[in-house]
């Protein structure tokens, strides 16, 4: 095969066309990333900073608030992501059934939460899950509970509330990917399995799930990244007196802690940068792990 070589002038034009985008990327992506890496080695508060080597990393290991934020974030991740992915697959499979009536309505209804405003839905959730909110009232009216659940006041229930909220918001978003993948599967594969006497549960477990594996990997990776950056919900729904992560830091996440370190407390920019690099390392490690688990086995 002959190689097509670009002339010198074509090369220049190509770079000229790319220049605006590259400049923006450099200013708003590359520079902050590199600068924050440099900052993560700085100690001190406000503008009073000096190079501290690995002091910030040592501080991480001694900081109970950081450890709590890390634990909370990992709890959200480990519990919420699998629940959401399973729900999204089940919803997609159910809504892919051509015999289901009102498919378009349900698809839209399940997808809509992810286009609502973060703050608006957070405020609504906060009011719905208040001690005398509509959720407690309904559960009591149905005699499922005898006294109101302290959604916002107790650490356990506050975590549950955050998990419910982000699951509600993001399940439909993930479902769309599964629906798209399901519609690409040749229908006759299922017909062949039906004729061959493969029961419905086995068609789901042995055919649908393996065929969705690339999409499961993709949605797991983006959901992992999203959950590690979880901020809006814990800064709004479980905020108390304007401070997020309540009660008693039980819903404090890494992103919220970075925000607090930077803007709420006396600015500790170097340490905040170190915490954000913890998220970077976690994302890299977890993504690598997920790719490893989902690899094609010989």
């Amino acid at each position, binding site marked *: 095969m002959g190689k097509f070589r670009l002339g010198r002038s074509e090369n220049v034009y190509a770079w000229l066309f790319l220049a605006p985008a590259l400049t923006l990327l450099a200013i708003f992506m590359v520079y902050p990333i590199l600068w924050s890496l440099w900052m993560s080695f700085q100690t001190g508060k406000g503008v009073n900073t000096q190079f501290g080597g690995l002091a910030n990393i040592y501080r991480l290991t001694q900081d109970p608030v950081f450890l709590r934020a890390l634990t909370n974030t990992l709890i959200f991740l480990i519990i919420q992501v699998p629940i959401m992915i399973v729900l999204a697959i089940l919803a997609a499979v159910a809504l892919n059934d051509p015999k289901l009536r009102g498919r378009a309505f349900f698809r839209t209804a399940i997808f809509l939460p992810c286009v609502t405003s973060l703050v608006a839905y957070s405020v609504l959730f906060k009011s719905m899950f208040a001690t005398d909110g509509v959720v407690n009232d309904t559960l009591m009216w149905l005699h499922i509970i005898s006294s109101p659940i302290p959604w916002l006041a107790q650490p356990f229930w506050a975590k549950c509330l955050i998990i419910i909220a982000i699951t509600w918001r993001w399940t439909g978003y993930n479902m769309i990917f599964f629906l798209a993948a399901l519609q690409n599967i*040749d229908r*006759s*594969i299922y*017909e*062949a*399995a*039906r*004729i*061959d*006497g*493969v*029961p419905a549960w*086995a068609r789901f477990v*042995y*055919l649908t799930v*393996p*065929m969705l*594996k690339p999409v499961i990997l993709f949605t797991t990776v983006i959901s992992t990244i999203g959950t590690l950056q979880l901020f809006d919900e814990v800064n709004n729904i479980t905020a108390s007196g304007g401070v997020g992560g309540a009660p008693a830091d039980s819903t404090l996440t890494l992103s919220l802690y970075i925000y607090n370190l930077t803007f709420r407390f006396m600015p500790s920019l170097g340490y905040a940068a170190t915490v954000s690099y913890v998220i970077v390392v976690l994302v890299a490690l977890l993504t690598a792990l997920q790719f490893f688990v989902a690899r094609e086995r010989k």
Partner: protein
Amino acid sequence: MSGVTLRGVRKSYGGLEVIKGVDLDIAPREFVVFVGPSGCGKSTLLRMIAGLEEISGGELQIGGTRMNEVDPSARGIAMVFQTYALYPHMTVRENMGFALRFAGLSKAEIDKQVMEAARVLELEPLLDRKPKALSGGQRQRVAIGRAIVRHPQVFLFDEPLSNLDAELRVHMRIEIARLHKKLNATIIYVTHDQVEAMTLADKIVVLRAGVVEQVGSPLTLYDDPDNLFVAGFIGSPKMNFLPAVVDAGGALRLPDHGDQILPALPASAKLSSGTQVTLGLRPEHFRPDGAAGLRLTVDLVEHLGGESFAYARHGEGGEVITVSTGDSRALESGQSFDARFDPSKALLFNAQGLRLR
């Protein structure tokens, strides 16, 4: 092996009837081909036998038992799809053995069945490959293997060769014919390719718009079609149709060919003078020693090597007539010639398109 019986079988989607009452008897071990143009309902009919489409009316029996309400998996059938429908994430071995896992067979038994089918289909070297590493023909063999391991009473094939290239199609056609002999199974095979139908079938069912036009052996349909549709559909190149008018004594006048008169046929002798009919002449009915002739001008000649076909017409605006010139390669386009044929071979159809015998 079981036979299959259809009695007044119908299928409608809402108000639209796509299968309009099909009656058919398929004997055990018979190779039956459903053939017809796109949208004639042949695939729908097959899917109704498979249980993938509900039967709106009438009765389906397999092996003498009513099957209308029986689950596809309990009908004693196996189906091979046009798209192969292989499980993409499983190896050939797993593809063929997958269904058996749910039939309560032990691992050793499954292995035995799979190996047996792989031997019949010469798939042994491919057992550990995944479908994407196979050629189209190999994939189709795996799909057939997946059907064989279940030892069905009836095999259903839905256009199994349509996705293959021409050479492979001929090869797989022969394989399927051989397999039918070896397995001694009842096979129902859907195709739109009349060559496949002619070469494979014991019995061909010609369908059009949800109605069975004719059922018969390939040569019966070829030599003795019931109507214009079957006459035109079976045979390649197509049969030529010439408008004709019955003259005194049953002689046939061809208005498009200078009012040429052909001697009476047994069927035309019974008709009254002035009746409009259609004369059917296969391209291969033209022979140099024929008693009658048409004066034609060649439009185009196709040389296939062993034989040649001339596409010719009478005058400027006449209908194109396909003439087999045998192994003669002398004709060229623009040339006029006398296309001789034996008038006694011609078929006669009435104005409704029905055969006059």
